[in-house]
């Protein structure tokens, strides 16, 4: 059952992301991207990360996607012509190298046995002892990762100020 769901969601994710990068109209790409976000949220649920699944939908599908659509509408972007010539010979080269590295990596992953990393303490039993995934994430987030958590608030503040400075019509 889990395997079937994985293949359904994974297949949809791959197809939608292909649609994203090949779509001519930015609006279509954006909609494909919403699909990708949703199936990835579904995969998070399969992996037992319910909190992140919710955050994925709220932050990505909710906030980031709306921002994208807003900008696309605001700028009235025209569909671009798809041409096969690459921008730059280097980029073609780099793209090929990168894809080869990834292909090799995929082949290796399938062979398996490379992940003998140190196991952590958060076994499923411990997580349910906390009261669920969300509580377990919180327990780590507000203790071990307290400083990065506070730091993200600064990043968001800076991003807000920066976005306003770059786009506001009249600054005093």
């Amino acid at each position, binding site marked *: 059952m889990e395997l079937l769901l994985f293949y359904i969601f994974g297949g949809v994710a791959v197809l939608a992301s292909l649609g994203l990068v090949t779509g001519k109209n930015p609006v279509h790409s954006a909609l494909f991207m919403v699909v990708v976000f949703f199936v990835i949220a579904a995969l998070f649920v399969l992996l037992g990360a319910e909190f992140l699944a919710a955050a994925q939908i709220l932050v990505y599908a909710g906030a980031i996607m709306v921002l994208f659509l807003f900008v696309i509408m605001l700028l009235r972007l025209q569909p671009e012509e798809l041409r096969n010539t690459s921008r*730059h010979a*280097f980029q073609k080269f*780099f793209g090929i190298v990168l894809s080869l*590295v990834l292909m*090799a*990596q995929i082949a*290796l*992953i399938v062979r398996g046995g*490379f*992940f*003998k*990393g*140190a*196991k*952590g303490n958060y076994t499923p039993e411990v997580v349910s*002892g*906390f*009261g669920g995934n969300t*509580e377990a994430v*919180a*327990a780590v987030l*507000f*203790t*071990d*990762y*307290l*400083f*990065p958590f506070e*730091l*993200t608030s*600064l*990043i968001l503040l*800076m*991003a807000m*100020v*920066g976005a*306003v*400075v*770059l*786009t506001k019509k009249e*600054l*005093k």
Partner: protein
Amino acid sequence: MTPIQITYPNMMVILPEVVLSCWVFFMMMADLFIPKEKKEINAVLGLIGLAVTAVSVFMVLSYGDISSFNDSMRSDRFALFFKLLFIITAALAILISAKYIAIEGVNWGEYYSILLFSVVGMMVLVSATDLVTVYLGMEFMALSIYVLTGFIRHDVRSNEAALKYFLLGAFSSGLILYGMVLLYGVTGSTNVYKIANFLAANDNYSNPLMIASVILLISGFAFKIAAVPFHMWAPDAYEGAPTSITAFMSVGPKAASFAALLRVFLVALPVMKPHWVAIFWGVSAISMVVGNVVAVAQTNIKRMLAYSGIGHAGYILMGVIAGTRMGVASVLLYMLVYIFMSIGAFSVIILLRKTGVKGDEIKDFSGFARRYPSLGLCMLIFLISLIGLPPTAGFIGKLYLFAAAVEAEYYYLAVIGVLMSVVSLFYYMQVAKTMYIDEEIEGQELVPSRALTFVVYFCAAATLLIGMFPDGFISAAMAAVLPI
């Protein structure tokens, strides 16, 4: 459910960051009450904030090496050395900005707040000992710089520079992130010390996923330090950005990225050294060649300095490749030296900027030194230092880098470095020739700013001082070396 137990962290570790961020909040609010004609007050406030932060850095220094926040942040002499460098860089950048952004018509208080926020990001980055904090610090720094690059929002060149820098920077963050994920997957931790311990205890030397991770991390870091083959953003971003920001980003983010690179590769991945040295060797050699050779063909001085910066990234990588105490110390020393010569050279370019005239073509410098002998002499000092000739700081810096490479037996790399320094003689001296020999041209009035001329003289003095009395600076750099 069990209540979360929060242990009280040692706040001294992040004291400079906290002080500076609080000061930025204050500046943002103060900006609301500063009238439009007096926005220079923001610059003064920024300088005061940096001075206070510098005091806090010296306070933390007396605590020795301390780690906190579950070992995700570490305050050691290595980090504090870099933090002081960023404070100096930011102070010089603010001094050269005050008049310049008024000329560009973007005299807003947010400029200073975002500049200081990027300094906070760099400070986090150099203290970070966990992949999460490395990533967040790097993004904080980079996002602030994207905004500053596009700050002249009515100028298409500035917009384009910001867009290119942004897209390529975000792409490179994706690569770094994938490398970090593989590292986490193989070792089961994001902490650099735990990663190092795991790799020391378990043989993963020829694990292909580790090699893939190293390749991805190097690609991402090469973007950040503008090394070939990931350098193409640099000339455009340098040319289009406000010149004061070009001066800042030619030094600050580069130094911060080098610091993070040293921490990740020397502390977390010493076991993988033969792999990453092989890749860095190539990156360093190509960067030196491409940067210096392409610079010869440039007519815009900001682009020329961008390519020369790519070459310098190649020189500095020699210290990383050597990986010895001497190598790391020479990287630190060169970053210090690079601040003064790079910011000095960009300040001279800003001096020529006035409404209607960009002043960033090499031909705009015709006869500059004959018209303004003392400023011309300063520019000559910066050029000589960038070439790496005595008696300037650039000579000392390069000497140590080459010595580190030779000591670690990377002879070919040192030879390429020396040859390329000879090539650089050619294009730097072309600027000097334009300044001293070519006919004087109209419209070379200077920006009337005492702060700006002060920075030029100060940087020239510092370049000469470090060049002639390097002992104190060398021992400071040696004392700040990472424990390897």
